[in-house]
């Protein structure tokens, strides 16, 4: 079933508008003064560490550890990425071999 193009465009416009607003709002709300408030400076410093942690969890949110293959391919691939990165500290190497091993693991399990 396809909705009319007009309707599709309206829905897309709603999504675009809300997305842009969420992206821009913090800059407008907290960044308008000459000096950024102390607690925002603090959050700005510590949040990146916490958010990247959250994004790791977010990108793995649909992995089911209760049904086969129990998240084993993801766990192994993540471990490979971590170890490779500690060893080589090259994002390209870590990402490339991480993805390659994950795609291979998915086909083995």
């Amino acid at each position, binding site marked *: 079933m396809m909705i009319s193009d007009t309707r599709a465009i309206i829905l897309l416009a709603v999504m675009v508008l809300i997305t842009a607003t969420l992206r821009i709002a913090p*800059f407008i709300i*907290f960044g308008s003064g000459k000096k950024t*408030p102390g607690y925002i*400076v603090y959050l700005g410093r510590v949040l990146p*560490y916490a958010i990247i*942690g*959250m994004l790791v969890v977010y990108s793995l949110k649909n992995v089911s550890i209760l049904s086969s293959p129990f998240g084993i391919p993801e766990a192994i691939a993540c471990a490979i990425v971590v170890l490779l990165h*500690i060893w080589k500290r090259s994002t390209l190497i870590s990402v490339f071999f991480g993805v390659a091993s994950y*795609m291979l693991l998915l086909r083995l399990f």
Partner: protein
Amino acid sequence: MTKQTFKSELREAFISTLPVLSGYIFLGMGFGILLRLKGYNFIWAFFISLTMYSGSMQYVAVDLISGGATVITTALTTLMVQARHLFYGVSLIDKYRGAGIKKAYMMFALTDETYALTSGDKADNHKARQRYYFIVTLLDHIYWISGCVLGALVGSVISFDVTGIDFVLTALFITIFVEQWMSSSDHIPAIIGVCLSVACLVIFGSESFLIPAMLTITVALMLIRKREETPNDDI
């Protein structure tokens, strides 16, 4: 710090965005193929990727428009999926301050991956670094649009199995996480981020854990703020 030339900044930005290039081309193509399958051609893919420019949201958008969702459902779903962007701005206010017209674009095109790259950048002089952040933002945007349009164009031709390629973004986030972990002596914020996200994921489920996770992370970080404050710090 010596002033970088545009060419050296472009080169540096290209190298640091390479993982995003591969991730965005594949994820973008995935979106384009899906969109094409639902009856929308590459022109739709172009405008959606240009204006919405959000991986997770665009996949959800395909569901919403092909399922004929209502405006209210669409708005609420967008709020849920995209609320995490509120976080990004908060931590980039000082880095992007005073970037002028470039800033407007950098705010609009701030994705997970661009955020990860610019917020993780260690440069001290933000002002001198803003052109570099702008180039990173623009390159990522171009990769994404290219992927989406390409997917919608060649959608039906492609036959090889790329299941699992989306792991590229997980891998990118993990490398940034490890990188930050190794370059900082304070691991508490990182641990808070992971633990509270996992806890909220278990409690609230994968569809609605982000907002509770963001709230609890913010509260936890504010609570531990005292531990490092100097007495004459403002507010």
